[in-house]
């Protein structure tokens, strides 16, 4: 696959942009590919709908926007409703399963859920939800390599918080790997 479009949607404050940042950094710096992140910006983003667009490619990226995401990551119900019509017919949907109930999914789309908020709470900090989703995305889709994603997490979070964030990444990653290795648990 030479080019993958990723759309990440959620609520402001869930770390949507940071998760896009980590995926982009993993791809462009540590995997040596090309990546472009377009971030939702401005006060409108706070506490309401928020999204990031990441394009990962083997060749330089021209048009920087995501039009038909091959990977759609949603962390809120509104994000699901808003972005699911755009998803590629054979795309992958990754969703927070306590917050989003996938309905009316196109037939070719494969969907994978994770209780990321609860997992984050059990790790001690709800704010690593987005890092769990990054791990989950890496585990399920391998759009970036595990080693690169881990390194990108370390690069992207404040000093002192790397350990917990890596634990969060690991938890999401393993959860995702188990789903992919096992048959898909969701049949929408």
């Amino acid at each position, binding site marked *: 696959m030479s080019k993958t479009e990723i759309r990440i949607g959620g609520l402001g404050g869930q770390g949507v942009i940071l998760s896009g*940042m980590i995926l*982009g950094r993993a791809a*462009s710096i540590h995997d040596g590919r090309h990546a472009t*992140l377009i971030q939702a910006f401005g006060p*409108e983003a706070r506490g309401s709908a928020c999204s990031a667009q990441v394009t990962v490619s083997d060749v330089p*990226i021209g*048009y*920087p926007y995501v039009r038909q995401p091959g990977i759609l990551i949603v962390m809120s119900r509104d994000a699901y409703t808003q972005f699911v019509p755009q998803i590629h017919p054979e795309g992958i949907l990754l969703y927070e399963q306590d917050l989003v109930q996938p309905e009316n999914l196109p037939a070719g789309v494969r969907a994978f859920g994770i209780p990321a908020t609860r997992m984050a709470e059990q790790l001690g900090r709800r704010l690593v939800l987005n890092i769990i989703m990054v791990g989950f995305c890496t585990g399920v889709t391998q759009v970036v390599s595990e080693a690169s994603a881990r390194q990108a997490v370390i690069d992207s979070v404040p000093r002192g918080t790397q350990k917990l964030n890596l634990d969060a990444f690991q938890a999401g990653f393993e959860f995702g790997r188990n789903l992919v290795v096992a048959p898909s648990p969701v049949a929408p």
Partner: protein
Amino acid sequence: MTADPLGVLTGVHFIDGDHAACEGALAAGCRFVAGYPITPSTEIVERFASRIPLVGGVFIQMEDELAASIAVQGAIWGGQKSMTVTSGPGLSLMMEHIGLAAFTEVPLVIIDVQRGGPSTGLPTLPAQADMMQVKWGSHGDYEIIALCPSSPQECFDLTVRAFNLAEQWRTPVFVMMDEVVGHMTERVQIPAPEAIEVVERRWTGLKPGDYRPFQPAEDLVPDMVRVGDGYRIHVTGLTHDERGYPAMNPAAQDKLVRRLATKIRDAGDALVDVREEACEDADVIVVSYGITSRVAQAAVEQARAQGVRVGHARLVIAWPFPSQRMAELAARTKAFVVPELNLGQMSREVERAVAGRVPVRLIDHAGGTVHEPDRILAGILEAAR
């Protein structure tokens, strides 16, 4: 000269265009920034404010854009490399001091992260509608230089270049970013300091008494001195003679204004940077700049897939406008297509340059987002017909 290692974050980064532009300024030797916050340019000064204590220098948030755009000129006469950063509404307020900088030949860099306008417009969404304002916005006749980055990497590279051009030509130099380029995050490679070429100020070799602050060298650009070094210069925004003294008569006006225009207009290839791709035998040439170049490139590739011979000419330096190059291209193509995020600004420059020899098709857009590539594609296909 090469860059001072203190200001250079050598390495590979995944940062947005605003942050990259700040790093470019630091690498170029900028150690004084006066700013006033305005979306979507604010991250540039925020980063500068957080970086400068350990690099050595000053950031000051002024009370408005008028203050910011003249405080930097004070700092430049004080010997510093300096810039200010803004977006459309702030640029409107800075116009008076752009005129002052052009007239008193201050090597000033201004980064304009364009957003939708006029007025408050669309603070968080892109446009390319300040292109004419930077060229013509201050009163009177003057010339500026404007660079158009289309990626965070170019935000770094062209900000370094903007400082170099400013020092070399002593005229205001603009980095015409836009909201998308400013907030788009990509890999940015910052070279080692010794690999970054930095143009130092043109310090005079003359002694106080022999030196005249506005006596031009061969390339029509005068050498500079630093305040406090004993030259006792006078600088005024009034029409002035080579001593810097007010000289308010038609002859002095003609001499000064003509020299300031000529030094840029006659710079020749030094100030032409058009990145051309497959323009040699193209039936249609797309002329683009800034973020729109990336969208246009997608459309160009789609058009080629449909068998159209289409070239792409990207204006890295938009001002001075490469009229001669456009005329040359007009001689070997059948049509121009000019997409831009405004209702027709640089497209009219293209029209002026090709002087009716071939049609120029504007693909306009009021801003707020970039073009859909399909719209540009449709324009190319129609022009090719």
